[in-house]
């Protein structure tokens, strides 16, 4: 092993703990990837910092761009802003319903693709892939053309139809990934131990696929809850939370919107961190 003779070119991957003579330039060179990585993370957090900071602002005018005075008013009087909490409630409702329906339909499809051989497989894959490869604005416009064509009034129902449609593909892909990574020997073992197919499915297969289904549910919910473009085309006069924010952006965004943004960030962070801790505990046990 010739480690010392050509140490210089290896700086890229050798552990940086080995002390070698050299100035600050070398120090930077050895950590360049870490430094760039850190800068990118800073870039990613910059807007979050602004969102949280300005949720504690008491804006002077209607625009919340300049930090004028610290205040917890927006946090304590969250629903003071007309229509915001109603739109939040509606978005939560739509998110939950769209998640339930798309996860059930998508999981069935994922099992069919992951577990069965059938004719028309490539066509099925294409149909699942297409909504993910279509820009949202096109999806929104085509659904609008469809609803106008069959003269359907747009509202909560059409929003739900649209959300279930675009969540479905993502659910299939997520659950399918989980199914195809399963060790089928576990099921064979269960069957060898005289478990019938039904028992094997509910005692072995389903619990193993469940993390994938939970992941898909979170994904579907966040897709639905945060969707603006497709919803905008198919909402009629209904206002979901993203539509409320869009409308507020034209008139000046109240700090309460920042509070909701901050809450979403912290809630999601908590969910992910808790799930990680649980996973680690399980791995240890």
């Amino acid at each position, binding site marked *: 092993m010739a480690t010392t003779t050509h140490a210089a*070119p290896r700086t*890229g*991957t050798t552990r940086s703990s080995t002390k070698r003579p050299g100035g600050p330039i070398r120090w930077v060179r050895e950590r360049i*990837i*870490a430094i*760039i*990585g850190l800068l*990118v993370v800073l870039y*990613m*957090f*910059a*807007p979050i910092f*602004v969102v949280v900071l300005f949720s504690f602002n008491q804006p002077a005018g209607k625009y919340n761009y300049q930090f004028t005075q610290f205040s917890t008013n927006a946090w304590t009087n969250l629903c003071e802003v007309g229509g915001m909490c109603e739109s939040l409630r509606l978005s939560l409702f739509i998110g939950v319903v769209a998640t339930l329906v798309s996860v059930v339909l998508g999981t069935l*499809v994922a099992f*069919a693709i992951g*577990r*069965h*051989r*059938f004719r028309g497989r490539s066509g099925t894959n294409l*149909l699942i*892939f297409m*909504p993910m*490869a*279509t820009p*949202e*604005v096109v999806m929104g416009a*085509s*659904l*609008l*053309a*469809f609803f*106008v064509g069959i003269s359907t009034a747009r509202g909560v129902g059409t929003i739900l139809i649209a959300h*279930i449609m675009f969540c479905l593909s*993502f659910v*299939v*892909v*997520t659950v399918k*990934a*989980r199914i195809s990574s399963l*060790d*089928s*020997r576990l*099921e064979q073992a269960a069957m060898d131990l005289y478990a019938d197919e039904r028992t094997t499915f509910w005692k072995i*297969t389903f619990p193993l696929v469940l993390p994938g289904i939970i*992941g898909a549910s*979170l*994904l579907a919910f966040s*897709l639905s*809850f*945060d969707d*603006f*473009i497709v919803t905008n085309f198919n909402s009629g006069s209904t206002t979901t*939370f993203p539509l409320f*924010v869009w409308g507020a952006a034209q008139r000046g965004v109240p700090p309460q919107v920042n509070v*909701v*943004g901050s809450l*979403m960030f912290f809630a999601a*962070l908590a969910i*992910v*961190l808790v799930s990680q801790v649980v996973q680690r505990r399980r791995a240890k046990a």
Partner: protein
Amino acid sequence: MSGGAVAATALEQEDIRGPHQDSGASEAKAVGTSRWTPYLLLSPGMLWLAVFFVVPTVALLVTSLYTGSLDQGYTFTFPGNWSTYSDALSTYYPQYFRSFVYAALATVFCLLLAYPLAYFIAFRAGRWKSTMLVLVIAPFFTSFLIRTLAWQTILADDGWIVQTMNTLHITNVLTWLHLTEPGRVINTPLAVVTGLTYNFLPFMVLPLYASLDRMDSRLIEAAQDLYSSAWTSLRKVTWPLSLPGVVAGTLLTFIPAVGDYINSELLGSPKTTMIGNVIQDKFFSEVDYPTMAALSVVLMVAVLIIVSIYVRRAGTEELV
């Protein structure tokens, strides 16, 4: 589309890399079930996609060929009113051009930012890997619109970033490149591209991370034992092996970016309108359904051509 969304898939992908068995074995379960079972499982979901994705796409095509106006009513007569397409294209080709340029720029910037980060997480983060991954996607849990609005504040004329750029004459250089206007960043192409880059960054980081993490790091060591420099091993070993991630990441960034109109609306000006802005204006301001539909069809066809070229290299099953 939300970043939290991609987040969930990525976290999911983290623990799916378990035992990989041959695909033949997974078919074992199918023995004994009826040959109609797969179709029963497929039908509700596929029916939903057929009725609410395929049929609307056809409706979009038909609408784009309508004759008439909103007041007189629209009618479809064979072979359709194709002049909508020529009118729309000749009027709005700058917006198409701009959309593709902005989306391409954003994709390139995403790749430049995401690659070192994904590399760091995959090879250097050690036991902090999953924590780093959470940190990287965490910002995208807040709503897309709220995140984009925050950039209005960050890039404001009197904000310290723009002030520093002015002092260092960076804005002058960028203005010369037609990316900004003298002394300001907000409402310029740079602001729109910054927003697009920011909003779609996780779509690039996660596939890149997935492909880099799957890579055998001993290959890099082998290259360097054979006297390859860090740069050469990156170029000849790491980069080619990460190509599936690069292809997936660029697609997942480019497709939503090219149709986006939120960034252009909130961070841009009338001079930075993208095709998405035109499509939504055709609906909201003018209620001109045929033009809206024709513009969407052209956008979709253009995107499909690009995607199919990519998919030929990556394969649909590998995406996401």
